[in-house]
């Protein structure tokens, strides 16, 4: 079973709309990170939210973390076509150890 997983395979929105990707995880974490991966590129970190934080913002991005339900969400407001990508959540284990990635949600933003 996956230690981290996003709850939707794919989401489609029009430019300007908002979109939310959800993630659930199954282990105790020190932090959860959201990454974006565009076609043919490596993942790029968007937001790191620590286990003692409930919400984190970065421009048009907002991440939430609920450790009681072991879930997180990433919301993107005022979407643009260049937000089209696969969005992953990844859980960080202690001590500089591995990131455990979910399978990813493909977000498609159309004009």
């Amino acid at each position: 079973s996956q230690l981290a997983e996003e709850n939707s395979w794919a989401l489609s929105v029009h430019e300007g709309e908002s979109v939310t990707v959800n993630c659930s995880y199954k282990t105790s974490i020190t932090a959860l990170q959201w990454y974006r991966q565009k076609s043919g590129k490596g993942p790029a970190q968007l937001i790191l939210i620590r286990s003692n934080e409930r919400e984190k913002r970065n421009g048009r991005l907002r991440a939430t973390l609920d450790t009681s339900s072991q879930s997180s969400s990433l919301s993107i407001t005022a979407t643009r076509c260049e937000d089209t990508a696969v969005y992953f959540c990844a859980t960080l284990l202690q001590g500089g150890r591995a990131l455990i990635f979910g399978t990813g949600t493909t977000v498609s933003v159309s004009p």
Partner: protein
Amino acid sequence: GPKVLQIPSHQIIDMGQMVTLNCDPVSNHLYFYWYKQILGQQMEFLVNFYNGKVMEKSKLFKDQFSVERPDGSYFTLKIQPTALEDSAVYFCASSPTGDEQYFGPGTRLTVL
């Protein structure tokens, strides 16, 4: 932002041959990682490396795999011998503190 480089971007080799994948991490980073991603599937952790040693490895990190960072230069992943199931994109990442990881663009390995 900080950039991790990977060389080569593509590599095609015959099964049984040796391959070395090279990663040029961000210069002041201390933690290094390799991940494997088969097309259409999730990224999976292989190994991480700190202070000249492997810290942790997954079950995907077979005996045929090895990593090193000689003299602070490239962080390398060597596979010897290669197998068909090693075909994938291999991503290197580095981190200053073990939290935020910066990924390279990946090396696409095709084993024939």
